[in-house]
């Protein structure tokens, strides 16, 4: 992505070699976390804090959707539904029943798992192109339901949701969000590198070959779907607490599409990639604010350009074995 300058091929090579070294190293994650923690020291205006908090929440959403779309290869066009389930469940319990927000989290977990099973259960047996349409439909159903129920406050939604710890300062809430999102990112990455994470990729790459190895495509997909639902639901809790309000307008198809865009832009299946994608998508429109009427036009053109230049995403997933794992090849008993 860096300007090639006049260096020609060798310059480009060096840049991409440097970029690859950077991508493969361990420190982008810690550096990003440090930047997030230092953010409020640089700029703690309500505008900046709001943007940083929103960005962190969209990172969590992108990482959660990446489990479904990137790891497992299931096209989900209604991911905002789980975001909504989380936000409304905690919001309703906190405002109508006066639960502390943290106490709603176990209920949110149960609700999102159930939502994942209810939506995923029947649809995951479908071929993937049908799945996209059905998930799109479910996304709308959840939104329209929230729009029409009394308990969810109808079109105007729920107001007066307390903070995570009952009304903390915005900076404190931001730090809590960063910690939770960081744990969510690490958790998704670790799941991706485990037995179930491998099974997700086997199913994505070749369902038949996976089944021949005893991997049940249906169960593995359902597991991905439920994991995605949990990540999205917990992000929804943060979202409601951040705005102290939720309304159906936050869970449109456009919102699902934007989360998906973060995944595709960053690099499907690449955990660091989708983090980057979500940050770019959250921050870029703000950076283009001065263009006023042209803001979203330029935003769209830039996205198209990026996808043309890097269809695999900004930070694509690569199959990587640790040197230790690869080196196990030369085992003593074989050499003997």
């Amino acid at each position, binding site marked *: 992505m860096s300007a090639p300058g006049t260096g020609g091929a060798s310059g480009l090579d060096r840049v991409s070699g440097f970029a690859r070294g950077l991508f493969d190293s361990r420190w982008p994650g810690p550096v990003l976390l440090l930047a997030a923690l230092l953010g409020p020291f640089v700029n703690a205006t309500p505008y900046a804090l709001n943007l940083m908090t929103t960005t962190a929440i969209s990172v969590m959403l992108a990482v959660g959707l990446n489990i479904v779309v990137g790891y497992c290869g299931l096209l989900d066009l209604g991911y905002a539904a789980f975001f909504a389930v989380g936000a409304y469940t905690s919001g309703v319990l906190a405002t109508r029943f006066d639960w502390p927000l943290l106490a709603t989290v176990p209920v949110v977990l149960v609700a999102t798992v159930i939502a994942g099973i209810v939506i995923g259960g029947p649809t995951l047996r479908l071929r993937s192109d049908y799945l996209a349409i059905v998930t799109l439909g479910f996304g709308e159903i959840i939104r329209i339901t929230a729009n029409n129920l009394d308990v969810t406050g109808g079109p105007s939604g729920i107001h007066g949701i307390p903070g995570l710890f009952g009304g903390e300062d915005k900076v404190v809430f931001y730090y809590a969000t960063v910690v939770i999102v960081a744990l969510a990112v690490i958790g998704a990455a*670790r799941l991706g590198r485990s037995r179930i994470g491998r099974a997700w990729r086997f199913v994505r790459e070749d369902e038949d070959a996976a089944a021949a190895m005893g991997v049940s495509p249906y169960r593995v997909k359902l597991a991905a779907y439920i994991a995605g639902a949990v990540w999205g639901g917990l992000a929804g809790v943060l979202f409601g607490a951040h705005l102290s309000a939720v309304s159906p307008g936050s869970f449109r198809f456009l919102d699902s599409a934007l989360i998906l865009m973060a995944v595709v832009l960053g690099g499907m299946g690449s955990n660091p990639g989708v983090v980057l994608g979500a940050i770019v998508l959250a921050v870029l429109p703000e950076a283009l604010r001065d263009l006023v009427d042209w803001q979203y036009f330029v935003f769209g053109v830039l996205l198209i350009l990026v996808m043309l230049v890097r269809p695999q995403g900004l930070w694509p997933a690569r199959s990587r*074995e640790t040197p230790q794992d690869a080196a196990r090849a030369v085992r003593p008993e074989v050499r003997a």
Partner: protein
Amino acid sequence: MNLEVADLRLSFGGLLAIDGLSFGVGENEIVSVIGPNGAGKTSAFNCVTGFYRPTAGRILLDGQDVSGRRPEQIAAMGVARTFQNLRLFGELSVLDNVRAGTHLWSRQRAIDALLHTPRFRRTENEVTDEAHRWLDFVGLRGDRAGPARALPYGEQRRVEIARALARRPSLLLLDEPAAGLNHSEKAEMTDLIRRIRELGISIALIEHDMGLVMEVSERVVVLNFGREIADGPPEQVRRDPQVIEAYLGRDAEDSEIAEIIGDGHG
């Protein structure tokens, strides 16, 4: 493991792909299924492994009727297979491909993975060691950390067999493992199949290379247009007039026959 296929029938719409096939693979036996292109060999394997649902007939694994079960259920019973057209996970590393075989018997809890507990590390190391062990067994020379699609064709065939072996199967179905291999690679494949048998695994083999078939098989089943036309020891099958006719037509020269049924191997 004991495989028994009884009066298997399979039709696709009007086409009868398999029309009454019966054969068995005994404990630790190698049985080959041969026949001209389109005879229904792969379809028969697909029925046994649950990818196709037979129209009629029974498939017994150690005496238990498994017809109609899904592929992952058949695999769970101890059956592994390879595919005629390689079906590796191309984008994934060679090691990951073989790790797929360990999915059924390795145990790991999500919570251990999330917390990176010692138990998680132990199970991961176990799975990685197992993958290396089978890659050593099949004699893979290429890069194990790189994506499977980067390997040459012959090496990919080995990876697919390593993946199936990592399943620790009792019955292994190989669909044309020597197709597209050169002469020396074929010899290595013959040796590999023998070594797999020495592990105590029963093998069903589809193969067009008659030299290989005659060399390793206990028994040979011959299919033609979905019908079974012969079943017996290699030396009997290769002299069966019906088999010779199926392969060459009625008026074949003796020299042609010798060439195709590998008489020269004695």
